[in-house]
């Protein structure tokens, strides 16, 4: 109804514009654009989606429709140490649920949330293909395998200095 003012940091504007340009502003490249922008900025807040919509000349509702459809995209900034607990079947039958529960309990956050200090965020994901090590969790790029709930506190302590 009314003109909406959208504020963005200059560097983010530059990143988004150059990525959209790289994909020749094609609406069909939306998912590729979102991947790259999230790769650069870390997440896809509303303002970022607005600018992508503007650049690709598609409705922002469609951009959000896509962002909210795919679990890979996030509108929340991830923690400094993003934790992903594998909930693939192999990990599930070897007790992944209790690992995830323990992470939630120790960090006092739910799945998809970030600790208030921004240090840890917790997500579950589907099979990273390390089924031989089940149950598995990843912190950043580091994989922790053959976990039991007891290990959770120790692992978090590694990052809590």
């Amino acid at each position, binding site marked *: *109804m*009314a*003109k*909406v*003012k*959208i*504020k*963005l*940091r*200059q560097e983010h*504007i530059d990143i988004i514009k150059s990525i959209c340009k790289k994909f020749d502003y094609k609406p069909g490249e939306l998912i590729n654009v979102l991947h790259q922008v999230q790769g650069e900025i870390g997440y896809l807040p*509303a303002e970022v*989606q*607005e*600018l992508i*919509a*503007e650049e690709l000349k*598609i*409705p*922002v*509702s*469609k*951009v*959000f*429709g896509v962002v*909210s*459809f795919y679990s890979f995209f996030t509108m929340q900034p991830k923690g400094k140490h993003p934790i992903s607990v594998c909930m693939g079947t192999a990990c599930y039958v070897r007790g992944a649920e209790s690992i995830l529960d323990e992470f939630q309990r120790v960090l006092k956050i739910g799945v998809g949330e970030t600790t208030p200090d921004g240090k840890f965020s917790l997500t579950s994901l589907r099979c990273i293909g390390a089924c031989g090590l089940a149950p598995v969790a990843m912190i950043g790029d580091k994989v922790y395998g053959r976990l039991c709930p007891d290990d959770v506190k120790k692992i978090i302590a590694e990052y809590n200095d």
Partner: protein
Amino acid sequence: MGETNMDMIKITIDNKVVEVAKGTTILKAAKDNNINIPTLCYFELAGMDIVNKPGSCRICVVEVEGRRNLAPACITECTPDMVIKTNTTRVLNARRTVLELLLSDHPSDCLVCPKSGDCELQNLAIRFGIREINYVGEQSTYKQDDSPSIHRDMNKCIMCRRCEMMCNEFQTVGALSAINRGFTAVVSPAFEEDLTLTSCTFCGQCVAVCPVGALSEINHTGKVLRALNDPTKTVVVQTAPAVRVAIGEEFGMAPGTIATGQMATALRKLGFDYVFDTDWSADLTIMEEGTELLNRLKKFLAGDKDVKIPLMTSCCPAWVNFFEHNFPDMLDIPSTAKSPQQMFGAMAKSYFAEKKNIKREDMVVVSVMPCLAKKYECSRDEFKVNGNPDVDYSITTRELASLIKLANIDFAALPESKFDDPLGESTGAGVIFGTTGGVIEAAVRTAYEIHTGKKCPKIDFEELRGLEGIRSATIDFDGLPINIGIAHGLKNARKLLEEIREGKSKFHAIEIMACPGGCIDGGGQPRHHGNSEIIKARWNAIYEADKNLPIRKSHENPSIIQLYKEYLGEPCGEKSHHLLHTHYFNKHNVFEVDLNKK
């Protein structure tokens, strides 16, 4: 054996062998054989380029021999020798279960729902004789969203996606999209924010097609009733051209019934002090817009580079919103003339109020419109004087019908009566504003005579009429060929605007209406539930009403002539410029550099 028609195939449906054309859906084949398969998400407005068949609600499933699972009838095409059963136990159980599932995630507040009695989901529940819902569980909860025109209660959404289709495909507005996935999937603006923060034009077509109570109009009947019962207020009503050809449907009259006379009587019975007609201000619009067109054209033909051609009509408030959002670089293309609703309001609260010596704040102007965007339009700041709006409340055809029902008025049995003078006198040119091509035809009838100084050889410009999305015609203004473009549906408007932006437009004047068929299928009209015959009947009725009127050209309207003589002076003169013209705003999002964040 005679010649077999290659395009016909034989199928068996419910044990009956029938021939259908290749490519026929099971749903259509069944319907043609008097088998009414229930549907829900399926929606089609034949001949209007509007179709929604995602095949997603699964209410219309049927059994097809040799097929592992059930087939959705709305989208499955018949194949040769197909054996279809539409009412086996398996089918009926599946349909009932699916319906129960939909009901299990739907509030059971039918009694107080704006859609009660006119709800496709409710109708199905009645038809299936649902007495209990075997599946219960978590229900979706979304925030309620009120904008000046539209109320969204997505807890009632059944994900038929008709609104999304209208908003994106027919209107190319893109305010709505499916968001999230799985159980949390719903149709919503981006970030689940309010419609007011989006590029929504309030055309109301989402409301027009919504099968349930998820989308409805903002209801002003209470406010109107209060005004009618306030002895200090003089309440003036205006009714738009498309209302008279549709309101009868709400009272069981055949589609296409012209109920102008009953409507005027009903309005009086409701207690309106003056019953006027928006057709009158439509005539006034023609005077202003027609003159503006001729002025611009003259300058353009004289080689004036500063003047913009084509001129585009500006009566449709959804269309105005559309170009303000999407074409902010072209705000000088549309006519500056206010819409008939706003011209009426401006005249009622100046000319007429002065005449009757009513103080502005003591007068309440109510408009009855086929439209939801009119609700937003009358709330715009530029149409207010010291905070007092020119039009106080805009209600829809449906809302007027509910007021009439509320007041125990037997509409169909009412005697006919006329509008009050002077703001009730109108011409056939005013009536045809109600459908696509009508505004420009009315303009042509007047502009021709003003430009040439001669009587126009004809009144009916058939070449401007029709229901195709984009139409064009060249009208000979006694040697001067005027190219006219007409579009309804904002996707078609977008095409014409883009042509103009690229400098490829050949038109001198373009008429745009946002809704399919124009105002006759506005978002505030009685629901047609996908029956385009109803729209065609209204369309015919508009032209019939035009023919029935003694005067059919706006500049011949005695009240208008008098208005200029008494009050305004001349069209596009100083006073009319002040009262009857407006300006447009850039509503496109702006991106700013945030200097505060690190």
